[in-house]
């Protein structure tokens, strides 16, 4: 849903055009429903506030209960500049307010993003509360404390030949609608950019997103800052709209209301907060006045909210979408044509089309046989202890460029721990690892993957809610863009060789037919192939495979062995597995681990006839 495979240009702009039309058409239509211009402007302000939050929560999965901090910061900065410092340009003040909020977002993000999940939610609540206290007393000289800042002026635009003053009412609506529209345009570009794709990956499986080479923390911080900037702009607009900056912009209620609006409207849609705000304000006015409920309107909304979370988690927009798909099920396959007709290139290696300036890290397989002198990977005296348990002890291990190495050993021999150390998922207790002569001991898994060393996992670690194509796109983007790049407004179609890389990998792991199926819907064997594909799409020069054959039927094993053989062309592979026959057939050399130590190393034939190895597998009956 995020990496929409290049739809035709005019259809891609359809939502933007529809939004513009709706913003223009809203005043005459909604006034019949009893909305006054001020209410509609307020809905737009909250909708803009919500766009940032939706990027954070709906798209990246970070539930913050502290957005009021940035809403207030932006609002009070702009209002202070305009009322107390006498800055005349409203637009400049709004921009400075947005900047201030973004800066606060960066600082708060550095603290709050140290933890995820419930910790993150709790920390954002606590920090927002501090902002509230600061505004109320220590900074009361600047913010007016409990009185807020009155007298915020409305903007006036000079067109050269005439001035265009903004008053309350419809001209204010026009001004705020324009701001909202720009905010929406930017957000939609972000969502459709490569970064949007990575955000979805982070929401789905942050560990794997890091393992394929994305700087997860960096992207989280980026989106947190962006969300803060949106909040700041919305806060500034609130002051301009009301002519007054209210202190409760900082309150916990503001954050909570934002969350509720977004969930009511539908998270992960960008439009959800707007719809939610409209419903919220309409119901508030309706319940309070027409239904005569007075103060109980909030109880009704609370009940609605709980029911939505229980039964319609995707909110109003999500529910409508489901209804539409249910009503008009379009035949599938229409989408597949655009994807499958890619590049059938015979031997299944991702074709690398001639490109004048070759981007260095995106090196596809088949490297120009740069057989350097030393081994591609060298582990020296590697040990790992967990308390008293010694998982790996003094392992010396070297693999030559282009080699196909097998690693076997009885259960509990320390094979997986060994792999985790090689890919830097786990830091060794002692010893060192060198990749292409570079010491990588103690590096992050993300950086190691960027160097060209990655692993396919023993238990599939997929982006389950995304399609097969999106899965591979995420992995390919990591090697094509580097670990952190801020190309927020770029279209993925413009990432060079992305398409051919993804198509090539799809073909290699034989999932071209299934490219639009969500990863969660794949069969077991397909999931295993996608798992390998994820590692492959990062274009590694050294690929570690942790039990690629485990749990497969005999037929699937034959297919997978074939796949591994074709992958091995031009790559260095290290494979852990328990399937001896397949490993003996596949590999050139085999290392045997037992009780955390290297027991033997040699060609498959040597290993097969090694009495020590036989003893390790068959028990101490035939002691050497």
């Amino acid at each position, binding site marked *: 849903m995020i990496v929409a495979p290049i739809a035709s240009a005019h259809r891609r702009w359809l939502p933007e055009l529809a939004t513009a039309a709706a913003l223009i058409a809203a005043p005459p239509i909604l006034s019949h429903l009893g909305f006054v211009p001020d209410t509609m402007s307020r809905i737009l302000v909250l909708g803009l506030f919500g766009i940032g939050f939706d990027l954070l929560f709906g798209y990246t999965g970070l539930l913050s209960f502290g957005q009021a901090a940035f809403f207030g910061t932006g609002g009070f900065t702009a209002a202070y500049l305009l009322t107390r410092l006498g800055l005349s340009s409203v637009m400049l003040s709004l921009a400075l307010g947005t900047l201030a909020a973004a800066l606060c977002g960066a600082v708060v993000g550095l603290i709050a993003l140290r933890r995820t999940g419930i910790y993150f939610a709790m920390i954002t609540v606590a920090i927002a509360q501090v902002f509230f206290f600061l505004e109320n007393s220590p900074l009361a000289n600047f913010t007016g404390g409990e009185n807020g800042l009155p007298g915020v002026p409305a903007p006036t635009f000079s067109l050269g030949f005439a001035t265009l003053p903004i008053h309350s009412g419809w001209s204010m609506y026009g001004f705020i609608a324009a701001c909202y529209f720009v905010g929406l345009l930017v957000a939609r570009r972000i969502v459709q950019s490569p970064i949007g794709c990575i955000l979805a990956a982070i929401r789905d499986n942050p560990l794997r997103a890091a393992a394929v080479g994305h700087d997860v923390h960096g992207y989280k911080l980026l989106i947190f800052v962006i969300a803060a900037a949106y909040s700041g702009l919305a806060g500034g607009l609130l002051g301009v709209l009301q002519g007054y900056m209210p202190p409760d912009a900082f309150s916990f209620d503001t954050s909570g209301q934002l969350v509720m609006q977004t969930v009511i409207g539908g998270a992960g849609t960008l439009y959800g907060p707007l719809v939610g705000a409209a419903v919220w304000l309409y119901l508030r006015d309706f319940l309070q006045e027409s239904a005569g409920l007075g103060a109980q309107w909030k*109880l009704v909304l609370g009940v609605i909210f709980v029911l939505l979370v229980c039964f319609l*988690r995707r909110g109003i927009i999500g529910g409508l979408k489901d209804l539409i798909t249910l009503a008009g099920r379009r035949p599938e396959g229409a989408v597949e044509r655009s994807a499958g007709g890619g590049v059938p290139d015979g031997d299944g290696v991702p074709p690398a089309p001639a490109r004048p300036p070759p981007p260095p890290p995106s090196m596809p397989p088949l490297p120009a046989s740069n057989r350097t002198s030393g081994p591609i990977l060298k582990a020296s005296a590697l040990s790992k202890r967990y308390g008293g348990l010694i998982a790996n002890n003094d392992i010396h291990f070297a693999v030559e460029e282009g080699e196909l190495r097998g690693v076997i050993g009885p259960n509990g021999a320390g094979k997986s721990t060994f792999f985790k150390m090689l890919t830097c998922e786990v830091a060794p207790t002692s010893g060192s690892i060198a990749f292409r002569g570079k010491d990588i001991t103690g590096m992050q898994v993300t950086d190691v993957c960027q160097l060209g060393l990655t692993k396919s996992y023993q238990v599939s670690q997929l982006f389950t809610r995304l399609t097969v194509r999106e899965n591979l796109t995420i992995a390919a983007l990591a090697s094509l863009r580097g670990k952190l790049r801020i190309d927020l407004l770029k279209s993925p179609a413009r990432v060079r060789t992305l398409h051919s890389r993804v198509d090539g990998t799809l073909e290699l792991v034989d999932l071209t037919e299934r490219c639009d199926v969500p990863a969660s819907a794949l069969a077991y064997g397909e999931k295993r192939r996608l798992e390998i594909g994820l590692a492959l799409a990062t274009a590694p020069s050294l690929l570690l495979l942790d039990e690629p054959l485990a749990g497969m039927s005999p037929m699937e094993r034959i297919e997978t062995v074939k796949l591994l053989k074709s992958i091995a062309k031009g790559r260095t592979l290290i494979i852990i597995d328990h399937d001896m026959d397949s490993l003996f057939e596949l590999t050139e050399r085999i290392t045997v681990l037992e009780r955390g130590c290297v027991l033997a190393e040699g060609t498959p034939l040597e290993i097969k006839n090694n009495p020590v190895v036989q003893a390790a597998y068959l028990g101490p009956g035939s002691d050497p």
Partner: protein
Amino acid sequence: MLTWANLWSQVFNGLARGALLALISSGLTVIYGTLGVLNLAHGAMFMIGGYAGYVAFSYTGSFIAALLAGSGVVLAVGLVMERVVIRHFYDRPHEDQILVTFGLGICFVEIIRFFFGSLSRSMPPPARLSGITSLGFMVYPTYRIAVVAIVAVSLLAIYLILYRTRLGMIVRAGIEDSGMVDCLGIDVHRVFMVVFGIGSMAAGFAGIVNLPVAPITPDMGDSILVQAFVVIVIGGVGSYAGAVLGGLIAGEILSISSMIDPAYSYVALFAVMTLVLMVRPRGLLGAESRT
């Protein structure tokens, strides 16, 4: 004024406040540690306890009756809430659990507001515990000393129930692997329901004990909830001892710093939380957190 007498009385204020925070936070952390659910309605439980106690007191005039009725009501609310809503959220993402408890918290606040209005209510301390006591070096309100004692006893009681009984053993096994406990033929859901009830009751009980100290309003739970968050971030999520330690630390910080400048007391608390996050992200006594 910075005098020794002043400092001592603030230290004692901090102790009373910290003890209450510890009790509230222990309920929150036990629920999270066992069920994996962060209950954003926990502040509302504190508030409901206060109102239930207030009602019982206004009918009977007895502090003991207020304690019993308040605890009972909150226990019942917790049990029903788990059975009707929370149970269906164990398999859903943390975000959904947070959202639904947040929504329920708002409903609770608004229901109480519907019946009692927004005006604050208060209750005097029981006659035997009113007045002041001389501690030799200073005089101090008797009831606040009693608060510390009452909370200490209830913390110990919860600890014994959760860590020294058969129920406690099942609870701790359930924390490790609830599916396995289920397989052993123990109805782990019933145990979870009880834990949710007891955890909520801790907050409700604290709400009644707090009643003679501070007047109650329907939205008093919000700030308590935020403080409880800070407490368990400092102490370590899911750690019982961490909640107690964190509560006492938070109480002392809030009280002592407010002696210097009340405006900055919350800022000081937050600064300590940030420091803990920097130096020891999983909290002072926290084990590696689940997910």
